[in-house]
């Protein structure tokens, strides 16, 4: 735990992370503030189902992207730090140095990922609930973008969505750490991971409807299995236009396996790097 804390202290010294936090707070405030007016207006007329349907879209609209941004900014330097500061050799000379460092970095990354999703979830959901209250919160979900029917209440489904986001975020975390270990350069890692995420978003919102035939199927499959698909909650439909709630275990099992596989690959890369 002490090593995890020292990783946290190290991360606290990264200036870009603080810039990232400030930008996120600013943009999140603006987005929540502009969305609240509309929500308040709908709630005044008593259309609470419509309100909860809007709240369901938070992750797809901006929370998913902010999570990705904070992960990329916060974790990219973590794996490159020793190489950039030229202390990697020193770590290797200590008994179990690489293994302990790896464990500390992974431990910190997981805690950071959970913290990011929790804070963003609490802030967005909390601010919306503060406006419309708990009216309609415990009523069953009447309309859902990703599933045909959901056997949960509105509030429970929103919380479950953040659970889905967390799984996608863990998947993305593994990817960032792998890229950082391979490139050993912070800015290149930020650019590659951020660029891939943005390219996936462009595909989702701009290119998807332009593609036809086999190309469309291939791109759709890649997007479905990508971390962006899971963070935007699109992949939980599991290749269907409207997903079945009974089949939701399939993407969950996939994303868990993929994350475990990523961390296994990361360990192999880290060990190999420590040996050379």
């Amino acid at each position, binding site marked *: 735990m002490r090593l995890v804390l020292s990783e946290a202290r190290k991360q606290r010294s990264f200036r870009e992370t603080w810039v990232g936090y400030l930008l996120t707070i600013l943009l999140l405030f603006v987005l929540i503030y502009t969305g609240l007016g509309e929500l308040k207006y709908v709630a005044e007329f008593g259309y609470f189902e419509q309100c909860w349907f809007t709240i369901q879209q938070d992750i797809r609209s901006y929370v998913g992207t902010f999570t990705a941004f904070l992960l990329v900014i916060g974790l990219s330097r973590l794996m490159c730090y020793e190489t950039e500061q030229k202390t990697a050799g020193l770590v290797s000379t200590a008994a179990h140095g690489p293994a302990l460092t790896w464990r500390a970095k992974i431990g910190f990354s997981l805690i950071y990922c959970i913290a990011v999703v929790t804070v963003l979830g609490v802030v967005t959901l909390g601010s919306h609930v503060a406006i419309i209250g708990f009216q309609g919160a415990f009523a069953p979900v009447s309309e859902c973008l990703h599933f045909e029917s959901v056997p949960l209440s509105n509030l429970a489904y929103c919380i479950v969505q953040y659970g889905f986001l967390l799984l996608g975020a863990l998947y993305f975390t593994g990817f960032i750490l792998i890229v950082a270990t391979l490139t050993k350069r912070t800015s290149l890692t*930020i650019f590659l991971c951020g660029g891939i995420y943005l390219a996936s978003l462009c595909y989702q*919102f701009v290119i998807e409807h332009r*593609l036809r035939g086999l190309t469309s199927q291939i791109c759709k499959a890649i997007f479905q299995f990508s971390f962006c698909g899971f963070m935007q909650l699109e992949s939980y439909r599991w290749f269907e236009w409207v997903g079945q709630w009974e089949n939701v275990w399939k993407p969950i099992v996939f994303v868990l396996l993929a994350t475990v596989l990523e961390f296994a690959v990361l360990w192999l890369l880290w060990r190999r790097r420590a040996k050379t």
Partner: protein
Amino acid sequence: MKTECYQYFKNPLYWVVIGLGLAVRTVLAYLDGRYRGPQFWELAADFWNKTGSVTMGFLILLVMIRRFSFDTELRTFPIINSTSYGRFSLFWNRLIGGGAAVIAAGLFLYAGNIGISFLLGNKIDMPYGWTNSFSCATVIALVGSVGYFLMSAMICDLAKNHPIAMCLCGLPFASSYFINAGAVSPPDIFWFLRYGLFTELVRGKTIKSFPAFWFVWYIALIELTLFFVIRKRKERKEL
């Protein structure tokens, strides 16, 4: 200045980003030719709106501005700073060399898009005046790209940290792609995000909403950043 310019061209990432941009354009042009034949040339002229501007953004933020924090990252800055031409003249040369490299990249993309469009759309009739309208969009995109590069480079020089500059300049640049121009009105913050950071110009479009204000704003933005750079450099004894 020639050496600095040469350093930009020597970076393999410079060519990788341009190559990737043109590869994406080739795939999109192929798909447009196959499925959206009647709109092929219209979409080709729209190159700067999406593929071209994104490539330019990637190029500026990933490759070009890194030179302004490179010495600090490599810890060679104190040595360079101690030389007679290693202070403001080096910074100035880097800005001019970078500007020239941005213009060269823009011309490569311009030529690449024309080549790809002629190659893949040779069976579709080209509308009259297409080359002129695309050339006009390219000139606007080049002006925007140079402005965006100057501002990002100076921010990178101020922070002496590449990721911070990427964050500060990249986030507003990227977010403006997701803001619908029809849904924003002048005093809105999203209106400011959409037009405030050269993105509209990099996308090869003139700003229809309050153009005089934005003209003054862009000049003020560059001058203000330069003022802060000079002040910071004086503080650090780097001038």
